[in-house]
Every structure is written in structure tokens, then in C-alpha cells.
């Protein structure tokens, strides 16, 4: 089992979700985050006081997934989230030791879906 975390542009969320649904990946946890990267940022000013804002709105998707589906998932995310412009985001993957479905107390690969 792996944990796949993708940080994407907020406006791509719907497309990424759809791409994952298309390959039957329908479980995920999503949150609003702010990202700092090559994309730079902007200056905000209020009554003459200038603030540098270099944290931009992003969406973070967390997907626990069985090993055999990881590659498909990555492909789906990449193809749907990519616009080619700086700021498209990143995907991170790490191994998962356990996944439990609270409702049934199932553990392991079956619990993921």
C-alpha cells in the first residue's frame, strides 16, 4: 500500500477527480493548502503597507492506494493536472504500513477502497 499525495492547482481539482474516477479510484481526502515554489508570488498592499505573498492557493489530494494501482493513479493525476505552466504542482509517494476502515475495522488492502 502507498500513500499518494498530490499538490495541484485549485482549478484543476475537478478534472483530477474525474480522471481518478474514470479509473475507479474514488476514495480520497482533499484539503486547501498554500504552496510556495518556482511560481513566485505577488505583492499585496493595504493603505500603503506592502505585503509579499508567496504562498499561493493549492489543493492537496491524499490517496491511500494499493501498489498495483499506483502507476495508473500517477498517470491519471499527471495528465489531468498538467497545464504546462509553472505552478502545476507535485506528487509525493510513500509506503503505507496500515490502512483501516473505521466502520468495519477491516485492515489492509481491502480497506483502502
Amino acid at each position, binding site marked *: 500500500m502507498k500513500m499518494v499525495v498530490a499538490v495541484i492547482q485549485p*482549478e484543476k481539482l*475537478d478534472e483530477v477527480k474525474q480522471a481518478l474516477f474514470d479509473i475507479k479510484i474514488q476514495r480520497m481526502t482533499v484539503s486547501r493548502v*498554500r504552496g510556495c515554489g518556482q511560481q513566485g508570488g*505577488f*505583492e*499585496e*498592499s*493595504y493603505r500603503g503597507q506592502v*505585503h509579499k*505573498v508567496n*504562498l499561493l492557493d493549492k489543493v492537496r489530494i491524499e490517496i491511500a492506494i494499493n501498489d498495483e494501482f499506483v502507476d495508473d493513479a500517477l498517470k491519471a493525476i499527471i495528465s489531468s493536472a498538467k497545464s504546462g505552466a509553472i505552478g502545476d504542482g507535485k506528487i509525493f509517494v510513500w509506503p503505507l504500513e496500515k490502512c483501516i476502515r473505521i466502520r468495519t475495522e477491516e485492515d489492509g488492502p481491502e480497506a483502502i477502497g
Partner: protein
Amino acid sequence: MFRHSKWISSGLLLSLSSTLSAQDAEPVGNALASSSDAFFILIGAVLILSMHAGFAFLEVGSVRQKNQVNALNKIICEWGFSTLIYLFVGYPLARGLNLFGSVAEVGGVNGIEYMRFFLFLGFAACIPAIISGGVAERAKFWTNSLAGIIFVGLVYPLIEGFTWGQYSDGIATADGWLAQTFGAPFHDFAGSAIVHGTGGWLALPAIILLGKRIKRYESNSIKVSSIPFLALGSWILIVGWFGFNVMSAGALEDIQGLVAMNSLLAMVGGTIAAMLFSKNDAGFVHNGALAGLVAVCAGSDLYHPLGSLAVGAIAGALFVFMFEIETEKWKIDDVLGVWPLHGLCGLWGGIAAGIFGQESLGGSGGVSFMSQLVISCGIAVVAALAGFIVYGALKAAFGIRLDEQQERIGSDLSIHHIQSNPEDAL
């Protein structure tokens, strides 16, 4: 509204105070009457001023968060631009009056001329405030302001001049050509067609020329930011509208409870119709009340209260159905729905005065269906054309739309360099 076209078309400032003082010879009562008029008009003007806060918050709630600040700055700045251009150009054009004489000359008794200007300005300034809601989230600040200035300086004053103002002899008087042709002059008590119709039909070509917002017709992409702010704007407008309609009488002695009653029932009709036809949708319900109020303006001094209820209910339904057709079927991206709300309901209001104003339907009569139809449609056509020409020219000359990147990050950041809730950014 201000049917005393005599003094309106007099055009001579110096004659005003004499006109006023001629009303009544008894001195005490006269002083009180004139100060009461000033007070009455002031309250109307202040209520209409407050409506501009309503326009602002209706837009704040109906756009995405990244365009809230722009909505606010746009409305208050356009109020400022409108005041100046209407003072210097529009009002003299519409009413043949200018207010630059010495204070002693213009002010007269209680300075009622100044109060009148304030009231009329409130109407004129609705034009850019109406348009604002249609072009939201993508229009450039400056070209849009420029368009507003042209409308408040020229287009609206001409329409105003020919219907309420100094050129209105043909249309608004009992012996004008319109009355002679169709039996009665054009009647638009508080501006269904003249104010709202003009605003809504000016907005339509602007919206079409601008084009839809990025991703507008992709699924789940654009959602409004805040129902509470939308509702706040709606409530401020509703409350202020009683100034818009009742104080259109223009003089305290002409105050008519019927106008308030009819405004009330049209608002209720619009609310309930919108609720029923929209399955209790918050956006429709709160705008349904406004649809009723837009439609009732023209004949609020004529209708039987039950007639108003009908006029308002039809407006509420009209708004619900036409907004969906406009935005979903025709894919015209009218953000707040200003064309169905002000344009169509305003047009309907102008026509309705010729229907429900008839004695056979309980109204006070003295209106002609054809007069109402012809002039209301005429205003719509003129406004649509003017909107097309002005926005078309501005588009050709400077462009009227934010560039893609600016639209993406939102007009708040790209124009005003701030987000609506700055502290929320980390």
C-alpha cells in the same frame, strides 16, 4: 415622478424660486411645506444612496471571493464618477438646470433644488451599479468606469430628458404626440423602464461583448462566495426601494400610501413567485423580491394593490425563467442576472402600467397600453444600441476585459492588490 413638467422644463434657474414661492401665499404654512418637501426628498435621496451599498453587497455575495473587493471599490467609485458627470453634464442635459449659480440663487427656499439633484442623481447612478453586476469578475476597471461615465453623462440623461425632463413634452404630457396617438402619455412613475430598463438593456451588449468568464460553463467551476452577503445586499436594496418609489412623488403633499402598498405587494409577489418556481433557491428568492420592486416602479401610483401583487409575481417568475434561459441556454454569462432583473422586469414594468393601470383592472386609469409598450420597448432598444456602441468602441479602442492571468488571480489582486480577507492568506 415629478409630473410638474412646467418647472422642470422651465430651464431658467432664476425663475425657480419664484415658481416655488408662487405655490402658496400663506407664509407660515408655506415655510413648513417647503422645508417638509426638502426633508421628504432628502430621505428619499438618502435611502437611494443606501441602495448603492445594497448593489455592492449583492455583488460581493454573488461573485467569487477573489472579486469581492473590486465589487466594493467599483460601486463606491462609480457613485463618485456619476455624481460629477451628472452634475456637470447629465443633469443640465436632462432637466435644463444647472446648479453652478451662487448658493443664494440656486438654494432658494431650503435649497430644495439641491435636494432634487441628490434624488435624481440617485436614480442616474443606478445605471453603472446595475451594469456592474452583469460584467462582474472580468471587466476592466477603467474602461468600465468610462462606459458608466458616458451612460450617466449622456445616454441616461437623454432618455430621462425625453420622458421626465426638458424634452418630455411629446411623450409625457397630456397633449403631446404620444397622448394624441394612443390616448394617454407615457407613464413611468419611478423608473421601471427609464431607470431599470435602461440599465439592464445597456448591460446586455456589455455582457455579450465581454464574453463568458473563464471556465464558466465547465462543471463545478464557478460558485458564488456568500449567501449572507448576497442577502444583505438584497435587504438593503429592498428597504431603500421604499425611498426610490415613494419619494418619486417629489413633494410631500403628493406622497401616496398606495405607492408604498404597491411596492410592498410587488415585492411579496416577486419573492413568493421566485420561491415557488425555484424550489426555495436562496439566490432566486432574494432577487425575486427585487424583480417585483423593479417591475412595480412604473405603475406603483396607479395599480390596485392586488394588481401590484400580480405585477410582482409575474416579474418574479419572469426573472427565474429568463435568467435560466439567458445563462444556461443562451450561455450569456450575466453574473448577477441584471438583464432579466432590471432589463426584462423593467420592460415588463413599463408595459404592465398599461395593463394593470387600466381602470378595468382596478387601476386609476389614464394610461395607454400602446404608449407604454412603444416607449418601454423604445427605451430598451435605444439602451441596447447605446450599450453596443459604447462597449463596442471601448473594446476596439482599449479592450474591456482583464487579461487571462488577471482574471484567474481575480480582479481584487490584479486591480486593487489585495484580497477580500487579507488575513486569511498565510
